[in-house]
């Protein structure tokens, strides 16, 4: 029974492969958290080379980049899902979104450097960093918006339009609320990715932290946590405990990723549950 032996052999191999993938992830998390968690003390955040400035910058840049990218990303996604006719123009926009999604982040970084650092002469700023980061968010936002709007049943639109609502009223009152869980999942996904981005920010937001704590000036340089990890790991300054800082920063980044992944599933499930309940009642 050769075929059956091959079948069993292959099944065992595939199980081994799957276990290997999971083991790899567990090993990753155990390694990073095991090395870094002991260093995550109050001193690590607020000590003389503490990372609270970087932590603040990470979220500040993320926040600004979402402000820049959300309106455009949602708008383009809505257009693609609801308005776009099947023609050359639509195809061109779809091709641009796909191309934008495939641009390596370092190319975004250099583009941001040409525009914000050199053409506008701003130097390394939080503003330039977040505007360039917004370009990375855009294609994912467009795709997520389009997908979640397309998942809304056709009958919802038809019912609303048949009642005499305009397209905009239908969008605002019917389609967007129904698609909200999907949109929130997508935005969390984008935020998680933007939070860990490094290559873009090195060339646009720089590798310095403002002397003022929690500096909200968008024209200040703003090193984020991820950039900080790169800086201390690739050019350790003599005399500092850079290895410990790197271990702690990596653990903090991973914790943030895990929290974001939890955020990804819980609120969207809750919303879905609520909306379904409301529709039934």
């Amino acid at each position: 029974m050769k075929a059956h032996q091959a079948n069993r052999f292959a099944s065992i191999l595939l199980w081994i492969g799957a276990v290997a993938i999971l083991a790899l992830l567990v090993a990753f998390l155990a390694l990073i958290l095991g090395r870094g968690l002991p260093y995550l003390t109050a001193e690590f955040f607020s000590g003389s080379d503490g990372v609270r400035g970087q932590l603040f910058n990470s979220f500040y840049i993320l926040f600004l980049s979402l402000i820049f990218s959300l309106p455009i990303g949602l708008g383009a996604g809505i257009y693609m899902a609801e308005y776009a006719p099947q023609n050359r123009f639509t195809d061109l926009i779809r091709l641009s979104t796909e191309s934008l999604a495939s641009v390596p982040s370092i190319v975004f970084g250099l583009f941001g450097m040409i525009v914000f650092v050199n053409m506008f002469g701003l130097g390394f700023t939080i503003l330039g960093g977040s505007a360039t980061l917004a370009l990375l968010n855009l294609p994912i936002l467009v795709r997520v918006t389009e997908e979640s709007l397309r998942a809304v049943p056709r009958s919802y639109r038809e019912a609303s339009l048949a009642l005499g609502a305009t397209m905009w009223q239908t969008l605002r009152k019917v389609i967007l609320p129904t698609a909200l869980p999907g949109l929130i999942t997508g935005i969390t996904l984008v935020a998680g990715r933007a939070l860990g981005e490094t290559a873009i920010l090195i060339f646009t937001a720089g590798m310095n932290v403002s002397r003022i704590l929690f500096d909200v000036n968008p024209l200040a340089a703003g090193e984020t946590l991820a950039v900080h990890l790169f800086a201390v790991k690739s050019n350790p300054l003599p005399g500092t405990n850079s290895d410990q800082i790197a271990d702690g920063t990596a653990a903090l980044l991973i914790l943030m990723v895990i929290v974001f992944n939890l955020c990804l599933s819980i609120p969207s499930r809750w919303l879905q549950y609520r909306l379904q309940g409301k529709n039934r009642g």
Partner: protein
Amino acid sequence: MPQPTKSWVYYNDRLARYLFISSAVLVSLIIICIIWFVGMQGLSTFREVSFLEFFTSSKWSPDSGQYGALTFIAGSIGTTLIAILLGGPLGLAGAVFLAEIAPPWVRAIMRPATDLFAGIPSVVYGYVGITVIVGFTRKITNSSTGYGMLAAGIVLAIMILPTVISLSEDALRSLPGSYKEASLALGATRWQTIWRVLVPAASPGILTAIILAMARAIGETMAVQMVIGNSPRFPDSLGSPTSTLTSNIVMEMGNTPYGSTWNNGLFMMAFILLVIALIMIILVRTASRKGAVR
């Protein structure tokens, strides 16, 4: 034809429509701007350097006027190939497992786990590379440092896993159930069904997954820069320090004045990466179109 009532409701509707169209157009303009700006800056390298030298010489010493980028191109291609050879089969195995073999509870663990893999920032991959993987490659390549193409390839192989797994799994799942039923009804074993029917039928989707994974690997910067060794030496062995297009940009961008030939050469490297990414997108489109005809 009766005129529609021109109330604010009507104007709001028009306004919203124009806003949506202009955001869509803006997305297209951005990619055109990126190609234009990076391309112009990069191509101005060839005012000083010959095309042939840039692509065929491996001597990169801008101080003495030598701008051969072959080392970096070879480094990028080499690390990407290693990543695909290691990560591709493993990822495909994971995808087949998830789509066809995994019991629901295993799937319920593994799906979020691969999403978590995708969410880990690339600097953290680089950090793990420096702390663990470089030590491992030092042993198996018998080199003095362990930094080099093999270390970068292993890190990239792990990084592309989620891309390969989720896209290939989607491709396998989107096949009509009748394919599997027909094959099993003919007496084929599960493995014969997977290998002779399902995987070939899903091959356009799997190919797309592999191409997108390659695009991610060749454009990856931070993780590679941290473990490649950053020496502008042609990669003659798996365990010797070398450079890739991305790692070299990170290393030298800060030290070169904007507008110098050296600086333009770095922009040219970024432009090469951009062109490769765009070619990959066109390949993906062709692959999926082939899948649609079927």
